[in-house]
């Protein structure tokens, strides 16, 4: 009795605290409270730099020139768009991204299916851990070691090819091979990620539905489209989206293996940006290039999400 009296006789500060939490818990306020921390992070660490970047793209400014930024409107953008090499770099990057993500997703999904159905695989956990190892290696180390592996004189690949009787392939030093060699390393590194995504997507499918589909004798393709894709769409889509965004930014591997060369064989757009922003310190034009790349990424993501959810929107409206 006395206890409850004490409890109800709350001190003003405690009551205020309780009121405060009750206020926060109100339906109108709670979402904002929950989202606030993320927004704070976003504003400080992302909005400020992005605005700076956006602003600087309208100036001509080189950090090492000692001169103040000169306002120049769209000068940087015009320069970049008029430069033929920009288009070559972009097309090269597009091809790289399409091939990389395409192969990684297809192979990832295929392997994911294989591994998903392998409950009885001896040492399954170890096998999967080994499979995921490429994702985990530090890019500097991976790039440097792959450079060694690809080297015709010191590398194990060309030694093996020589054993088979073929002439050594100059993976990184030959202009036509370098692009594919770098692409292969990217695929090696990130297919396991897509395998993971695929397996998570498959895991989202209720067993009951898969069995029902089998009983109904749906073809593999129908099973894929109606059951697996329906349930696993979100995770798969997230994986593809993230991978595409990241592939567009590929720079680490190139930096260690070929530095964009030979010639322009592996000059992807992120490498050009790195050079412009971080070696030449051409802040104006590199910011413009960054904004252009950002717009391309945003356009892609928006289109991707739109197309993905168009059916849902249609069924919702119907």
């Amino acid at each position, binding site marked *: 009795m006395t206890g409850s009296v004490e409890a109800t006789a709350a001190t003003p500060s405690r009551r205020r605290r309780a009121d405060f939490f009750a206020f926060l818990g109100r339906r109108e306020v709670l979402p904002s409270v929950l989202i606030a921390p993320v927004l704070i992070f976003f504003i400080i660490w992302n909005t400020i730099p992005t605005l700076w970047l956006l602003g600087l793209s309208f100036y001509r400014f*080189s*950090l*090492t*020139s*000692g001169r103040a930024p000169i306002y120049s409107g769209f000068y940087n953008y015009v320069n970049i768009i008029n430069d*033929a*090499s920009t288009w070559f770099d972009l097309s090269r990057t597009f091809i790289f991204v399409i091939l990389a993500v395409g192969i990684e997703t297809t192979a990832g999904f295929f392997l994911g299916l294989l591994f998903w159905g392998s409950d009885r695989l001896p040492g399954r956990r170890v096998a999967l851990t080994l499979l995921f190892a490429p994702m985990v290696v530090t890019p500097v180390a991976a790039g440097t070691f792959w*450079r060694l592996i*690809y*080297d*015709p*004189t*010191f590398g194990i690949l*060309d030694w093996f090819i020589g054993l088979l009787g073929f002439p*050594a392939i*100059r*993976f*990184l*030093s*030959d*202009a036509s091979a370098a692009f594919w060699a770098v692409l292969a390393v990217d695929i090696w590194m990130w297919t396991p990620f897509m395998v993971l995504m695929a397996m998570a997507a498959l895991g989202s499918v209720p067993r009951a539905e898969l069995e029902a589909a089998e009983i109904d004798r749906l073809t593999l393709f129908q099973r894929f489209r109606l059951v697996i894709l329906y349930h696993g769409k979100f995770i798969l889509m997230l994986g593809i989206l993230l991978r595409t965004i990241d592939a567009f930014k590929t720079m680490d591997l190139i930096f260690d293996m*070929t*530095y*964009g*060369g*030979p*010639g*322009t*064989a592996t*000059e992807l757009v992120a490498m050009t940006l790195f*050079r*412009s922003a*971080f*070696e*030449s*310190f*051409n802040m104006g034009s590199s910011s413009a290039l960054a904004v252009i790349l950002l717009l391309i990424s945003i356009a892609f993501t928006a289109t991707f999400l739109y197309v993905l959810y168009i059916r849902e929107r249609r069924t919702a409206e119907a």
Partner: protein
Amino acid sequence: MSKEMDAPAGADTATTERKQKRIGRRQLIRASAALGAAAALPRYAYSQSEKASPLAGKSIHMQILGIAGWLPSKLGVDMSPEFAKYAKSKYGYDVSFSFADAPFGALFQKAATSLATRSQEYNIIISDSQWLGALATPHWIVQLNDIIAKNPELNIEWWSPSIRSSYQVFPDGSSKLWGFPQVGDIIGIFVRKDILEGPGEAAAFKAKYGRDLPTTWEDFDKMDFDQWVDLIAFFNRPEKGYHGFCAQYSREYDAASCPTMSFMRSLGGDVWDPKTGQVQGIFDTPSNAHAMELYKSWLKYQPPGATNYFIAEVIDAFTQGKVFAAWQWVATGKTMIPPNLEGKVLVVPPPAFKKPDGTLYRNYIIGGQPWVINAFNDPEHMQIAVDFMKWWYLPETQREYLTRGGMPCDKATCSRPDFDGIYPWNRTYKYMLLRSSDFWHDPKYSEMLSDQQQAFTGYYTGQIKDPLHALQWVACQQQKILYDEGTAAKAPTAACSGITL
């Protein structure tokens, strides 16, 4: 009201009197200060070499930013305890040094970002000679002319005039000095003496080419490009596990550019005119195109994959016995000659080129790094930086630096009779310092270099067929960069619009 008006007047008289007294006192103080300063000034000017330094009794920490894993770079800090002793006894202050190391590929980035915020985090920075313009133009580093004038000990006689022009001067051709040479470096050819002197080799060579096999440094000195080709062709034995030669061709940094420009200059061409900033017409000449062809022709005798070689790959190829000879910066000498190759390697000058009158000529690109003083150092750190430099270039210090593996540039140390014997590459080093020069120090060096590298590597891997066209493209790009910057007087020619590689 009037009272208040009066009061200030009255007070004014009093204060005026007081003011006059104060003024008088102030004048007296000023006068005596001036006298004292006048008395003190000559003393300050000499205090550098006297015990009474303004920093006496203080304890200061200095930080040097340098190249990770590069012994000469670190020697400044390694030897700093000796400077600390010297400074304590001579100037009376305590100083400690620490070394901030950065991977060479990201060193400029670290320095530039730090200096952009006007930080004195790095009091002395070891920089590549190319970066002098990029560091000097925004006034991030100290112009040294005044300091050298006030401290005549820093007006050092260098072993070669190219030391000054390579490691100190910006803009090229002016008399403004910005750095001191921290480590000098030149190109040498490392030759496997044991393979060279193998049984029967001399006779076979003589039989094939009708000339004697070069065996001594002097023999190699006299060799021109064609003779070198014969030599490496002769020793190109893939079936025995080694090729004739390896050099630097990769896209990274200045790998392909340095050798190519060396050939261009040695054939009598050049890369630009520093006075006018003109590139077109100087860079894209048939002579320079011929230089590219010559450098490409060497690939026949090099291991597969040689077009992706930079410093590290050359080291690996040579130390693992995959090549007979290697083109390399001699500052990597200790790594190029590991214990198992000791005594088996001869370091000789790179090929000379025959001038029309028959004489041999070499003008190679110089390597090495200068170090520069951060302009944002407070007066104390600035003073210590100057003191440190003065101590560093004392002959005793440079001698110690040399024996520890450094590459000094001053005439006093290089002229020592025991210089050549300390390391196998020292003789070539001294020799080539007199025959090497640098390329642009312009702040836009990075973009100019990148375009050049793209063209050179494209040509060396066969993507581009016509070297002259490649040069014309590069010249257009570089002319545009320099013109936009204001360094070049002339704009790129009309032929440049629409030119692609």
